[in-house]
Protein backbone atom coordinates (compact mmCIF):
# COMPACT_ATOMS: atom_id res chain seq x y z
CA UNK A 1 0.00 0.00 0.00
CA UNK A 2 1.49 3.25 -1.05
CA UNK A 3 -1.06 5.71 0.14
CA UNK A 4 0.82 8.58 1.75
CA UNK A 5 -2.21 9.55 3.71
CA UNK A 6 -2.56 6.12 5.16
CA UNK A 7 1.12 6.02 6.08
CA UNK A 8 1.14 9.39 7.73
CA UNK A 9 -2.15 8.68 9.37
CA UNK A 10 -0.97 5.32 10.59
CA UNK A 11 2.14 6.79 12.18
CA UNK A 12 -0.03 9.23 14.05
CA UNK A 13 -2.56 6.55 14.86
CA UNK A 14 0.14 4.25 16.18
CA UNK A 15 1.24 6.88 18.65
CA UNK A 16 -2.31 7.71 19.65
CA UNK A 17 -3.40 4.13 20.03
CA UNK A 18 -0.34 3.24 22.06
CA UNK A 19 -1.06 6.17 24.31
CA UNK A 20 -4.66 5.01 24.63
CA UNK A 21 -3.57 1.50 25.42
CA UNK A 22 -1.28 2.68 28.20
CA UNK A 23 -4.13 4.79 29.51
CA UNK A 24 -6.48 1.80 29.46
CA UNK A 25 -3.85 -0.30 31.21
CA UNK A 26 -3.23 2.20 33.98
CA UNK A 27 -6.81 3.08 34.74
CA UNK A 28 -7.88 -0.52 34.60
CA UNK A 29 -7.66 -1.02 38.33
CA UNK A 30 -10.30 1.60 38.94
CA UNK A 31 -12.29 1.84 35.75
CA UNK A 32 -13.11 -0.58 32.95
CA UNK A 33 -9.88 -1.45 31.19
CA UNK A 34 -6.78 -3.29 32.28
CA UNK A 35 -3.80 -5.13 30.90
CA UNK A 36 -5.71 -7.38 28.60
CA UNK A 37 -7.81 -4.69 26.97
CA UNK A 38 -4.85 -2.32 26.82
CA UNK A 39 -2.70 -4.98 25.27
CA UNK A 40 -5.28 -5.68 22.61
CA UNK A 41 -5.46 -2.01 21.69
CA UNK A 42 -1.68 -1.75 21.46
CA UNK A 43 -1.52 -4.89 19.40
CA UNK A 44 -4.17 -3.48 17.09
CA UNK A 45 -2.01 -0.40 16.65
CA UNK A 46 1.01 -2.45 15.60
CA UNK A 47 -1.12 -4.67 13.42
CA UNK A 48 -2.44 -1.61 11.66
CA UNK A 49 1.10 -0.40 11.21
CA UNK A 50 1.95 -3.76 9.78
CA UNK A 51 -0.86 -3.48 7.24
CA UNK A 52 0.34 -0.05 6.21
CA UNK A 53 4.09 -0.65 6.08
CA UNK A 54 4.41 -4.41 5.93
CA UNK A 55 5.24 -6.95 8.57
CA UNK A 56 8.96 -6.26 8.53
CA UNK A 57 8.48 -2.61 9.26
CA UNK A 58 6.12 -3.44 12.07
CA UNK A 59 8.64 -5.84 13.50
CA UNK A 60 11.21 -3.08 13.36
CA UNK A 61 9.03 -0.52 15.13
CA UNK A 62 8.27 -3.10 17.75
CA UNK A 63 11.99 -3.41 18.63
CA UNK A 64 11.43 -6.63 20.58
CA UNK A 65 10.28 -9.76 18.77
CA UNK A 66 6.79 -10.96 19.72
CA UNK A 67 8.42 -13.97 21.31
CA UNK A 68 10.55 -11.78 23.53
CA UNK A 69 7.51 -9.68 24.40
CA UNK A 70 5.68 -12.80 25.48
CA UNK A 71 8.60 -14.03 27.54
CA UNK A 72 9.12 -10.63 29.12
CA UNK A 73 5.46 -10.24 29.91
CA UNK A 74 5.34 -13.65 31.50
CA UNK A 75 8.47 -12.99 33.53
CA UNK A 76 7.12 -9.64 34.73
CA UNK A 77 3.84 -11.25 35.77
CA UNK A 78 5.60 -14.01 37.66
CA UNK A 79 8.12 -11.68 39.26
CA UNK A 80 5.30 -9.49 40.52
CA UNK A 81 4.22 -12.50 42.53
CA UNK A 82 7.65 -12.90 44.06
CA UNK A 83 7.62 -9.49 45.72
CA UNK A 84 5.58 -11.15 48.41
CA UNK A 85 8.80 -12.77 49.57
CA UNK A 86 9.78 -9.41 51.08
CA UNK A 87 6.83 -9.43 53.43
CA UNK A 88 7.05 -13.17 54.01
CA UNK A 89 3.57 -13.74 52.64
CA UNK A 90 2.44 -16.17 50.00
CA UNK A 91 2.86 -15.96 46.25
CA UNK A 92 1.10 -13.10 44.45
CA UNK A 93 0.29 -11.24 47.66
CA UNK A 94 -0.06 -7.57 46.72
CA UNK A 95 2.72 -5.25 47.88
CA UNK A 96 1.86 -1.58 47.79
CA UNK A 97 3.75 1.69 48.14
CA UNK A 98 2.41 5.22 47.95
CA UNK A 99 4.32 7.59 45.70
CA UNK A 100 3.07 11.14 45.59
CA UNK A 101 -0.50 10.27 46.31
CA UNK A 102 -0.35 7.42 43.82
CA UNK A 103 -0.87 3.87 44.94
CA UNK A 104 1.57 1.58 43.19
CA UNK A 105 1.55 -2.11 43.77
CA UNK A 106 2.53 -5.46 42.42
CA UNK A 107 -0.97 -6.26 41.05
CA UNK A 108 -0.43 -3.31 38.73
CA UNK A 109 2.92 -4.75 37.73
CA UNK A 110 1.17 -8.03 37.09
CA UNK A 111 -1.24 -6.22 34.79
CA UNK A 112 1.74 -4.68 32.98
CA UNK A 113 3.02 -8.19 32.40
CA UNK A 114 -0.34 -9.20 30.99
CA UNK A 115 -0.23 -6.12 28.76
CA UNK A 116 3.12 -7.01 27.20
CA UNK A 117 2.21 -10.62 26.81
CA UNK A 118 -1.05 -9.87 25.07
CA UNK A 119 0.72 -7.57 22.60
CA UNK A 120 3.24 -10.30 21.89
CA UNK A 121 0.62 -13.00 21.50
CA UNK A 122 -1.65 -11.12 19.14
CA UNK A 123 1.22 -9.89 17.03
CA UNK A 124 2.81 -13.29 16.88
CA UNK A 125 -0.42 -14.79 15.62
CA UNK A 126 -1.10 -12.07 13.11
CA UNK A 127 2.48 -11.92 11.84
CA UNK A 128 2.56 -15.66 11.43
CA UNK A 129 -0.69 -15.67 9.50
CA UNK A 130 0.27 -12.67 7.39
CA UNK A 131 3.63 -14.02 6.39
CA UNK A 132 2.50 -17.58 5.93
Amino acid at each position, binding site marked *: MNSVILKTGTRLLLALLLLLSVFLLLRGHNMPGGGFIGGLVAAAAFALYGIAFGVEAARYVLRLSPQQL*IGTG*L*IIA*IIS*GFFALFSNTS*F*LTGQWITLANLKLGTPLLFDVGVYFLVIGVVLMMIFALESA
Partner: protein
Amino acid sequence: MSWLLVLPIIIPLVTAAVLFAFGKRTEWQKNFSFASTLFLLLTGILLLVQVAKDGILVAQMGSWRAPFGISLVADLLSAIMVLITGVMGFAIAIYARKDIGPRLEHLGFHPVYHVLLAGINGAFITGDLFNLYVWFEVLLISSFVLLTLGGNKAQLKGGVHYVLINLFSSLLFLTAIGILYGLTGTLNMADLARQLAGLPAGLVTTVAILFLIAFGVKAAVFPLFFWLPSSYHTPPMATTAIFAAMLSKVGVYALVRAFTLLFTQDPGYTHNLLAWIAALTMFTGVLGAAAQTDIRKILSFHSISQIGYMIMGLALFSSLGFIGAVFYIVHHSIVKASLFLVAGLIKREGGSFELSELGGLYKRKPLLAVLFLILAFSLAGFPPLSGFWAKLIVIRAGLEAEAYWLVAVSLVVGLLTIYSMTKIWQAVFWKPAESEPVKPVAGSLRPLYMPIAGLALVTLMIGFFAQPFYVLAESAASQLLNSQLYISSVLGDLIGAKP
Protein backbone atom coordinates in the same frame (compact mmCIF):
# COMPACT_ATOMS: atom_id res chain seq x y z
CA MET B 1 5.85 -23.19 53.73
CA SER B 2 3.30 -21.81 51.33
CA TRP B 3 6.04 -21.36 48.75
CA LEU B 4 6.70 -25.06 48.67
CA LEU B 5 3.23 -25.47 47.21
CA VAL B 6 3.77 -22.85 44.54
CA LEU B 7 7.15 -24.13 43.43
CA PRO B 8 5.89 -27.12 41.42
CA ILE B 9 3.97 -24.65 39.28
CA ILE B 10 6.38 -21.77 39.30
CA ILE B 11 9.62 -23.61 38.54
CA PRO B 12 8.47 -24.86 35.15
CA LEU B 13 6.64 -21.62 34.42
CA VAL B 14 9.72 -19.50 35.06
CA THR B 15 11.74 -21.95 33.00
CA ALA B 16 9.26 -21.69 30.18
CA ALA B 17 9.21 -17.89 30.35
CA VAL B 18 12.99 -17.68 30.28
CA LEU B 19 13.24 -20.13 27.41
CA PHE B 20 10.54 -18.16 25.65
CA ALA B 21 12.33 -14.87 26.02
CA PHE B 22 15.97 -15.83 25.64
CA GLY B 23 16.08 -19.38 24.39
CA LYS B 24 17.83 -19.22 21.06
CA ARG B 25 20.77 -21.52 21.61
CA THR B 26 19.55 -25.07 21.81
CA GLU B 27 22.43 -26.45 23.86
CA TRP B 28 21.80 -23.86 26.50
CA GLN B 29 18.08 -24.61 26.35
CA LYS B 30 18.70 -28.29 26.92
CA ASN B 31 20.85 -27.74 29.96
CA PHE B 32 18.53 -25.19 31.46
CA SER B 33 15.60 -27.47 30.86
CA PHE B 34 17.42 -30.38 32.44
CA ALA B 35 18.40 -28.38 35.51
CA SER B 36 14.85 -27.15 35.93
CA THR B 37 13.34 -30.62 35.87
CA LEU B 38 15.90 -31.71 38.43
CA PHE B 39 14.74 -28.92 40.69
CA LEU B 40 11.16 -29.93 40.07
CA LEU B 41 11.98 -33.46 41.13
CA LEU B 42 13.67 -32.25 44.31
CA THR B 43 10.70 -30.02 45.08
CA GLY B 44 8.41 -32.98 44.62
CA ILE B 45 10.42 -35.02 47.10
CA LEU B 46 10.46 -32.17 49.56
CA LEU B 47 6.74 -31.63 49.23
CA LEU B 48 5.93 -35.28 49.76
CA VAL B 49 8.17 -35.45 52.82
CA GLN B 50 6.55 -32.34 54.23
CA VAL B 51 3.01 -33.56 53.61
CA ALA B 52 3.78 -36.97 55.02
CA LYS B 53 5.13 -35.28 58.11
CA ASP B 54 2.67 -32.43 58.66
CA GLY B 55 -0.50 -33.60 56.97
CA ILE B 56 -2.41 -31.63 54.37
CA LEU B 57 -0.66 -28.41 53.36
CA VAL B 58 -2.61 -25.37 52.26
CA ALA B 59 -1.41 -22.09 50.77
CA GLN B 60 -3.62 -19.10 50.01
CA MET B 61 -2.56 -17.32 46.87
CA GLY B 62 -2.32 -13.58 47.37
CA SER B 63 -2.90 -14.22 51.08
CA TRP B 64 -6.67 -13.98 50.56
CA ARG B 65 -8.22 -16.44 52.90
CA ALA B 66 -10.25 -19.41 51.73
CA PRO B 67 -12.73 -19.67 50.18
CA PHE B 68 -12.28 -16.19 48.70
CA GLY B 69 -8.81 -16.44 47.28
CA ILE B 70 -7.45 -19.41 45.46
CA SER B 71 -6.12 -22.19 47.66
CA LEU B 72 -3.35 -24.51 46.71
CA VAL B 73 -3.79 -27.74 48.59
CA ALA B 74 -1.45 -30.68 48.83
CA ASP B 75 -2.75 -33.78 50.47
CA LEU B 76 -0.82 -37.00 50.05
CA LEU B 77 -2.44 -37.84 46.75
CA SER B 78 -1.55 -34.46 45.31
CA ALA B 79 1.97 -34.66 46.68
CA ILE B 80 2.45 -38.13 45.21
CA MET B 81 1.19 -36.94 41.86
CA VAL B 82 3.51 -33.94 41.93
CA LEU B 83 6.44 -36.19 42.76
CA ILE B 84 5.57 -38.52 39.91
CA THR B 85 5.38 -35.54 37.60
CA GLY B 86 8.84 -34.58 38.82
CA VAL B 87 10.22 -38.06 38.28
CA MET B 88 8.72 -38.43 34.84
CA GLY B 89 9.47 -34.86 33.86
CA PHE B 90 13.10 -35.41 34.78
CA ALA B 91 13.48 -38.79 33.09
CA ILE B 92 11.76 -37.72 29.92
CA ALA B 93 13.72 -34.48 29.78
CA ILE B 94 16.89 -36.58 29.67
CA TYR B 95 15.44 -38.75 26.94
CA ALA B 96 14.24 -35.71 25.03
CA ARG B 97 17.76 -34.28 24.90
CA LYS B 98 18.54 -36.84 22.28
CA ASP B 99 15.11 -37.75 20.99
CA ILE B 100 13.88 -34.30 20.05
CA GLY B 101 15.82 -33.04 17.07
CA PRO B 102 17.11 -29.49 16.70
CA ARG B 103 14.23 -28.69 14.39
CA LEU B 104 11.60 -29.28 17.02
CA GLU B 105 13.72 -27.56 19.61
CA HIS B 106 13.85 -24.56 17.38
CA LEU B 107 10.09 -24.65 17.09
CA GLY B 108 9.81 -24.37 20.85
CA PHE B 109 9.71 -27.85 22.30
CA HIS B 110 11.40 -26.96 25.57
CA PRO B 111 9.29 -24.02 26.74
CA VAL B 112 6.09 -25.83 25.88
CA TYR B 113 7.27 -28.97 27.65
CA HIS B 114 7.71 -26.95 30.80
CA VAL B 115 4.37 -25.27 30.45
CA LEU B 116 2.90 -28.73 30.21
CA LEU B 117 4.60 -29.72 33.46
CA ALA B 118 3.34 -26.52 35.08
CA GLY B 119 -0.19 -27.25 33.94
CA ILE B 120 -0.05 -30.80 35.22
CA ASN B 121 1.27 -29.76 38.59
CA GLY B 122 -1.20 -26.91 38.77
CA ALA B 123 -4.06 -29.34 38.21
CA PHE B 124 -2.75 -31.62 40.93
CA ILE B 125 -2.26 -28.97 43.50
CA THR B 126 -5.04 -26.47 43.12
CA GLY B 127 -7.92 -26.45 45.53
CA ASP B 128 -10.16 -24.33 43.37
CA LEU B 129 -12.43 -25.68 40.71
CA PHE B 130 -12.14 -22.83 38.25
CA ASN B 131 -8.41 -22.75 38.76
CA LEU B 132 -8.43 -26.43 37.92
CA TYR B 133 -10.10 -25.51 34.66
CA VAL B 134 -7.36 -22.98 33.98
CA TRP B 135 -4.60 -25.51 34.60
CA PHE B 136 -6.43 -28.02 32.49
CA GLU B 137 -6.36 -25.54 29.65
CA VAL B 138 -2.69 -24.82 30.26
CA LEU B 139 -1.80 -28.45 29.96
CA LEU B 140 -4.19 -28.94 27.08
CA ILE B 141 -2.87 -26.16 24.90
CA SER B 142 0.69 -27.24 25.57
CA SER B 143 -0.23 -30.82 24.75
CA PHE B 144 -1.83 -29.57 21.53
CA VAL B 145 1.35 -27.80 20.58
CA LEU B 146 3.64 -30.67 21.55
CA LEU B 147 1.48 -33.13 19.71
CA THR B 148 1.53 -31.22 16.46
CA LEU B 149 5.05 -29.81 16.76
CA GLY B 150 6.79 -30.36 13.47
CA GLY B 151 3.46 -30.81 11.77
CA ASN B 152 3.93 -33.99 9.78
CA LYS B 153 0.89 -35.57 8.28
CA ALA B 154 0.19 -38.21 10.87
CA GLN B 155 0.58 -35.60 13.57
CA LEU B 156 -1.83 -33.26 11.88
CA LYS B 157 -4.37 -35.99 11.42
CA GLY B 158 -4.07 -37.17 15.02
CA GLY B 159 -3.83 -33.59 16.20
CA VAL B 160 -7.15 -32.59 14.67
CA HIS B 161 -8.80 -35.54 16.35
CA TYR B 162 -7.21 -34.86 19.70
CA VAL B 163 -7.66 -31.11 19.70
CA LEU B 164 -11.27 -31.03 18.65
CA ILE B 165 -12.45 -33.67 21.09
CA ASN B 166 -10.60 -32.03 23.93
CA LEU B 167 -11.99 -28.62 23.10
CA PHE B 168 -15.44 -30.09 23.37
CA SER B 169 -14.68 -31.62 26.74
CA SER B 170 -13.18 -28.37 28.02
CA LEU B 171 -16.37 -26.55 27.29
CA LEU B 172 -18.30 -29.30 28.99
CA PHE B 173 -16.13 -28.86 32.06
CA LEU B 174 -16.66 -25.12 31.97
CA THR B 175 -20.42 -25.63 31.74
CA ALA B 176 -20.30 -27.91 34.73
CA ILE B 177 -18.35 -25.35 36.71
CA GLY B 178 -20.82 -22.64 35.76
CA ILE B 179 -23.78 -24.70 36.88
CA LEU B 180 -22.09 -25.67 40.12
CA TYR B 181 -21.23 -22.05 40.75
CA GLY B 182 -24.84 -21.09 40.18
CA LEU B 183 -25.84 -23.70 42.71
CA THR B 184 -23.39 -22.83 45.47
CA GLY B 185 -21.88 -19.44 44.72
CA THR B 186 -18.44 -20.75 45.43
CA LEU B 187 -15.50 -22.32 43.61
CA ASN B 188 -13.22 -23.48 46.37
CA MET B 189 -13.40 -27.25 46.40
CA ALA B 190 -13.44 -27.59 50.15
CA ASP B 191 -16.14 -24.97 50.37
CA LEU B 192 -18.05 -26.71 47.61
CA ALA B 193 -17.83 -29.99 49.44
CA ARG B 194 -19.21 -28.34 52.54
CA GLN B 195 -22.05 -26.60 50.75
CA LEU B 196 -23.05 -29.45 48.48
CA ALA B 197 -23.93 -31.48 51.54
CA GLY B 198 -26.85 -29.17 52.20
CA LEU B 199 -28.27 -29.11 48.68
CA PRO B 200 -30.85 -31.34 46.98
CA ALA B 201 -28.96 -34.55 46.25
CA GLY B 202 -30.73 -35.16 42.97
CA LEU B 203 -29.65 -31.93 41.40
CA VAL B 204 -26.12 -32.33 42.72
CA THR B 205 -25.83 -35.85 41.37
CA THR B 206 -27.05 -34.67 37.98
CA VAL B 207 -24.35 -32.04 37.98
CA ALA B 208 -21.91 -34.72 39.09
CA ILE B 209 -22.62 -36.56 35.84
CA LEU B 210 -21.46 -33.53 33.92
CA PHE B 211 -18.17 -33.65 35.78
CA LEU B 212 -17.96 -37.38 35.29
CA ILE B 213 -18.18 -36.89 31.55
CA ALA B 214 -15.85 -33.91 31.40
CA PHE B 215 -13.16 -35.61 33.50
CA GLY B 216 -13.91 -38.91 31.85
CA VAL B 217 -12.81 -37.50 28.52
CA LYS B 218 -9.50 -36.39 30.01
CA ALA B 219 -9.04 -39.70 31.75
CA ALA B 220 -9.92 -41.53 28.53
CA VAL B 221 -12.59 -43.85 29.86
CA PHE B 222 -15.18 -45.73 27.88
CA PRO B 223 -16.82 -44.42 25.70
CA LEU B 224 -14.95 -41.13 25.78
CA PHE B 225 -11.44 -42.31 25.06
CA PHE B 226 -11.37 -41.98 21.30
CA TRP B 227 -8.91 -39.13 21.20
CA LEU B 228 -6.19 -41.18 22.85
CA PRO B 229 -5.59 -43.97 20.34
CA SER B 230 -6.03 -41.54 17.47
CA SER B 231 -3.21 -39.32 18.54
CA TYR B 232 -0.74 -40.88 20.98
CA HIS B 233 1.24 -42.64 18.31
CA THR B 234 1.96 -39.59 16.22
CA PRO B 235 4.46 -37.33 18.02
CA PRO B 236 8.05 -38.17 18.99
CA MET B 237 8.14 -40.80 21.71
CA ALA B 238 9.40 -38.39 24.36
CA THR B 239 6.21 -36.40 23.91
CA THR B 240 4.02 -39.47 23.92
CA ALA B 241 5.76 -40.71 27.03
CA ILE B 242 4.99 -37.62 29.06
CA PHE B 243 1.42 -37.72 27.75
CA ALA B 244 1.02 -41.37 28.67
CA ALA B 245 2.59 -40.80 32.05
CA MET B 246 0.70 -37.75 33.14
CA LEU B 247 -2.08 -36.47 30.88
CA SER B 248 -4.71 -39.07 31.40
CA LYS B 249 -3.61 -39.26 35.04
CA VAL B 250 -4.74 -35.69 35.45
CA GLY B 251 -8.17 -36.83 34.36
CA VAL B 252 -8.04 -39.78 36.73
CA TYR B 253 -6.88 -37.50 39.51
CA ALA B 254 -9.73 -35.11 38.83
CA LEU B 255 -12.20 -37.98 38.90
CA VAL B 256 -10.76 -39.21 42.18
CA ARG B 257 -10.89 -35.74 43.67
CA ALA B 258 -14.42 -35.05 42.46
CA PHE B 259 -15.83 -38.40 43.53
CA THR B 260 -14.19 -38.52 46.92
CA LEU B 261 -14.53 -34.91 47.95
CA LEU B 262 -17.44 -33.38 46.10
CA PHE B 263 -19.88 -35.98 44.89
CA THR B 264 -20.41 -38.60 47.52
CA GLN B 265 -24.11 -37.92 47.93
CA ASP B 266 -25.23 -41.14 46.30
CA PRO B 267 -22.32 -43.51 45.77
CA GLY B 268 -24.84 -46.27 45.15
CA TYR B 269 -25.54 -44.61 41.83
CA THR B 270 -22.44 -42.63 40.89
CA HIS B 271 -19.84 -45.15 41.97
CA ASN B 272 -21.78 -48.02 40.50
CA LEU B 273 -21.76 -46.10 37.29
CA LEU B 274 -18.02 -45.69 37.67
CA ALA B 275 -17.69 -49.43 38.16
CA TRP B 276 -19.46 -50.11 34.88
CA ILE B 277 -17.36 -47.54 33.15
CA ALA B 278 -14.24 -49.08 34.67
CA ALA B 279 -15.15 -52.55 33.45
CA LEU B 280 -15.96 -51.39 29.94
CA THR B 281 -12.84 -49.24 29.81
CA MET B 282 -10.61 -52.13 30.86
CA PHE B 283 -12.16 -54.44 28.36
CA THR B 284 -12.43 -52.22 25.31
CA GLY B 285 -8.93 -50.93 25.91
CA VAL B 286 -7.35 -54.34 25.99
CA LEU B 287 -9.38 -55.49 23.00
CA GLY B 288 -8.08 -52.53 21.11
CA ALA B 289 -4.56 -53.48 22.10
CA ALA B 290 -5.09 -57.03 20.92
CA ALA B 291 -6.18 -55.75 17.54
CA GLN B 292 -3.16 -53.56 16.84
CA THR B 293 0.15 -54.35 15.24
CA ASP B 294 1.90 -51.05 15.78
CA ILE B 295 3.78 -50.97 19.07
CA ARG B 296 2.72 -47.44 19.81
CA LYS B 297 -0.92 -48.23 19.21
CA ILE B 298 -0.79 -51.34 21.35
CA LEU B 299 0.66 -49.29 24.15
CA SER B 300 -1.91 -46.53 23.63
CA PHE B 301 -4.83 -48.89 23.91
CA HIS B 302 -3.22 -50.43 26.94
CA SER B 303 -3.23 -47.08 28.62
CA ILE B 304 -6.99 -47.02 28.31
CA SER B 305 -7.30 -50.48 29.70
CA GLN B 306 -5.10 -49.67 32.67
CA ILE B 307 -7.04 -46.53 33.39
CA GLY B 308 -9.99 -48.82 33.82
CA TYR B 309 -8.19 -50.46 36.73
CA MET B 310 -7.61 -47.08 38.35
CA ILE B 311 -11.25 -46.15 37.98
CA MET B 312 -12.13 -49.55 39.38
CA GLY B 313 -10.21 -48.68 42.52
CA LEU B 314 -12.10 -45.42 42.76
CA ALA B 315 -15.45 -47.04 42.07
CA LEU B 316 -15.01 -49.53 44.90
CA PHE B 317 -15.00 -46.57 47.24
CA SER B 318 -13.06 -48.29 49.98
CA SER B 319 -9.72 -47.75 51.57
CA LEU B 320 -8.19 -50.70 49.78
CA GLY B 321 -9.75 -49.59 46.51
CA PHE B 322 -8.17 -46.17 46.81
CA ILE B 323 -4.83 -47.72 47.76
CA GLY B 324 -5.06 -49.80 44.64
CA ALA B 325 -5.92 -46.78 42.53
CA VAL B 326 -2.96 -44.82 43.90
CA PHE B 327 -0.65 -47.79 43.36
CA TYR B 328 -1.94 -48.18 39.85
CA ILE B 329 -1.50 -44.52 39.01
CA VAL B 330 2.09 -44.49 40.20
CA HIS B 331 2.95 -47.81 38.61
CA HIS B 332 1.33 -47.03 35.32
CA SER B 333 2.87 -43.58 34.99
CA ILE B 334 6.32 -45.02 35.33
CA VAL B 335 5.93 -48.19 33.36
CA LYS B 336 3.81 -46.99 30.49
CA ALA B 337 5.93 -43.94 29.86
CA SER B 338 9.06 -46.08 29.91
CA LEU B 339 7.51 -48.49 27.46
CA PHE B 340 6.86 -45.65 25.05
CA LEU B 341 10.47 -44.61 25.49
CA VAL B 342 11.48 -48.19 24.74
CA ALA B 343 9.28 -48.06 21.65
CA GLY B 344 11.26 -45.05 20.53
CA LEU B 345 14.47 -47.05 20.95
CA ILE B 346 13.00 -50.02 19.11
CA LYS B 347 12.30 -47.70 16.23
CA ARG B 348 15.87 -46.42 16.30
CA GLU B 349 17.45 -49.83 16.67
CA GLY B 350 15.04 -51.86 14.59
CA GLY B 351 13.84 -49.33 12.09
CA SER B 352 10.09 -49.57 12.58
CA PHE B 353 7.17 -49.54 14.96
CA GLU B 354 5.32 -52.18 13.01
CA LEU B 355 5.54 -55.67 14.52
CA SER B 356 5.74 -57.41 11.18
CA GLU B 357 8.74 -55.36 10.12
CA LEU B 358 10.71 -55.90 13.30
CA GLY B 359 12.62 -58.83 14.70
CA GLY B 360 15.83 -60.19 16.07
CA LEU B 361 16.41 -57.50 18.66
CA TYR B 362 16.89 -60.06 21.43
CA LYS B 363 20.20 -61.06 19.99
CA ARG B 364 21.21 -57.67 18.72
CA LYS B 365 20.18 -55.50 21.64
CA PRO B 366 20.08 -57.60 24.80
CA LEU B 367 19.99 -54.58 27.08
CA LEU B 368 16.93 -53.24 25.33
CA ALA B 369 15.38 -56.68 25.58
CA VAL B 370 15.95 -56.83 29.32
CA LEU B 371 14.53 -53.36 29.84
CA PHE B 372 11.47 -54.13 27.76
CA LEU B 373 11.01 -57.39 29.57
CA ILE B 374 11.00 -55.82 33.00
CA LEU B 375 8.62 -53.09 31.96
CA ALA B 376 6.29 -55.21 29.87
CA PHE B 377 5.94 -57.89 32.48
CA SER B 378 5.44 -55.27 35.11
CA LEU B 379 2.62 -53.88 33.00
CA ALA B 380 1.18 -57.34 32.55
CA GLY B 381 1.15 -57.66 36.33
CA PHE B 382 3.73 -60.37 36.82
CA PRO B 383 5.18 -60.66 40.27
CA PRO B 384 7.11 -59.30 41.92
CA LEU B 385 7.04 -56.13 39.83
CA SER B 386 5.08 -53.01 40.68
CA GLY B 387 2.18 -53.94 38.40
CA PHE B 388 1.58 -57.10 40.35
CA TRP B 389 0.95 -55.28 43.59
CA ALA B 390 -1.28 -52.78 41.86
CA LYS B 391 -3.34 -55.58 40.37
CA LEU B 392 -3.36 -57.60 43.57
CA ILE B 393 -4.61 -54.72 45.66
CA VAL B 394 -7.33 -53.72 43.23
CA ILE B 395 -8.55 -57.30 42.88
CA ARG B 396 -8.54 -57.83 46.60
CA ALA B 397 -10.46 -54.61 47.05
CA GLY B 398 -12.97 -55.84 44.51
CA LEU B 399 -13.38 -59.13 46.33
CA GLU B 400 -13.80 -57.42 49.64
CA ALA B 401 -16.44 -55.17 48.15
CA GLU B 402 -18.05 -58.33 46.71
CA ALA B 403 -17.92 -56.84 43.22
CA TYR B 404 -17.25 -60.26 41.76
CA TRP B 405 -18.21 -59.44 38.20
CA LEU B 406 -15.79 -56.54 38.22
CA VAL B 407 -13.04 -58.81 39.49
CA ALA B 408 -13.85 -61.33 36.81
CA VAL B 409 -13.55 -58.68 34.12
CA SER B 410 -10.27 -57.47 35.52
CA LEU B 411 -8.89 -61.01 35.54
CA VAL B 412 -9.85 -61.66 31.94
CA VAL B 413 -8.35 -58.32 31.00
CA GLY B 414 -5.21 -59.33 32.88
CA LEU B 415 -4.88 -62.39 30.68
CA LEU B 416 -5.39 -60.37 27.51
CA THR B 417 -2.79 -57.93 28.76
CA ILE B 418 -0.28 -60.75 29.03
CA TYR B 419 -1.25 -61.80 25.53
CA SER B 420 -0.66 -58.42 23.97
CA MET B 421 2.60 -57.79 25.82
CA THR B 422 4.01 -61.13 24.72
CA LYS B 423 2.83 -60.27 21.23
CA ILE B 424 5.27 -57.37 21.16
CA TRP B 425 7.98 -59.35 22.88
CA GLN B 426 7.81 -62.28 20.52
CA ALA B 427 7.59 -60.21 17.37
CA VAL B 428 10.22 -57.63 18.20
CA PHE B 429 12.76 -59.61 20.14
CA TRP B 430 12.38 -63.31 19.46
CA LYS B 431 11.21 -63.46 15.90
CA PRO B 432 14.18 -63.43 13.51
CA ALA B 433 14.52 -60.21 11.60
CA GLU B 434 12.94 -60.28 8.17
CA SER B 435 15.26 -57.79 6.61
CA GLU B 436 18.78 -56.59 7.15
CA PRO B 437 19.18 -54.56 10.31
CA VAL B 438 19.07 -50.84 9.79
CA LYS B 439 22.29 -48.94 9.80
CA PRO B 440 23.30 -47.89 13.27
CA VAL B 441 22.22 -44.39 14.12
CA ALA B 442 24.97 -41.86 14.39
CA GLY B 443 26.05 -41.01 17.89
CA SER B 444 25.63 -42.87 21.12
CA LEU B 445 22.17 -43.85 22.21
CA ARG B 446 23.20 -44.11 25.83
CA PRO B 447 21.30 -40.97 26.84
CA LEU B 448 18.17 -42.71 25.62
CA TYR B 449 18.85 -45.87 27.58
CA MET B 450 19.66 -44.15 30.84
CA PRO B 451 16.25 -42.79 31.79
CA ILE B 452 14.59 -46.07 30.83
CA ALA B 453 17.00 -48.04 32.96
CA GLY B 454 16.36 -45.67 35.84
CA LEU B 455 12.62 -46.05 35.55
CA ALA B 456 12.85 -49.81 35.22
CA LEU B 457 14.82 -49.77 38.43
CA VAL B 458 12.00 -47.85 40.06
CA THR B 459 9.41 -50.45 39.09
CA LEU B 460 11.70 -53.13 40.46
CA MET B 461 12.12 -51.15 43.66
CA ILE B 462 8.40 -50.71 44.13
CA GLY B 463 8.02 -54.42 43.52
CA PHE B 464 10.66 -55.59 45.93
CA PHE B 465 10.14 -53.01 48.64
CA ALA B 466 6.42 -52.55 48.43
CA GLN B 467 5.79 -51.92 52.11
CA PRO B 468 6.81 -48.24 52.34
CA PHE B 469 4.91 -47.49 49.15
CA TYR B 470 1.91 -49.30 50.49
CA VAL B 471 1.99 -47.40 53.74
CA LEU B 472 2.15 -44.14 51.85
CA ALA B 473 -0.73 -45.12 49.59
CA GLU B 474 -2.67 -46.21 52.64
CA SER B 475 -2.32 -42.82 54.26
CA ALA B 476 -3.27 -41.15 51.00
CA ALA B 477 -6.33 -43.36 50.82
CA SER B 478 -7.35 -42.58 54.36
CA GLN B 479 -7.13 -38.87 53.59
CA LEU B 480 -9.35 -39.43 50.57
CA LEU B 481 -11.88 -41.35 52.61
CA ASN B 482 -12.00 -38.68 55.25
CA SER B 483 -13.02 -35.63 53.27
CA GLN B 484 -13.68 -33.65 56.46
CA LEU B 485 -9.95 -33.54 56.96
CA TYR B 486 -9.48 -31.85 53.61
CA ILE B 487 -12.30 -29.42 54.25
CA SER B 488 -11.11 -28.39 57.68
CA SER B 489 -7.52 -28.08 56.50
CA VAL B 490 -8.53 -25.63 53.81
CA LEU B 491 -11.26 -23.71 55.53
CA GLY B 492 -9.84 -23.82 59.02
CA ASP B 493 -12.02 -21.94 61.48
CA LEU B 494 -14.72 -21.35 58.90
CA ILE B 495 -15.75 -24.92 59.36
CA GLY B 496 -18.17 -24.17 62.17
CA ALA B 497 -19.84 -21.36 60.28
CA LYS B 498 -22.97 -22.03 58.34
CA PRO B 499 -22.61 -22.13 54.59
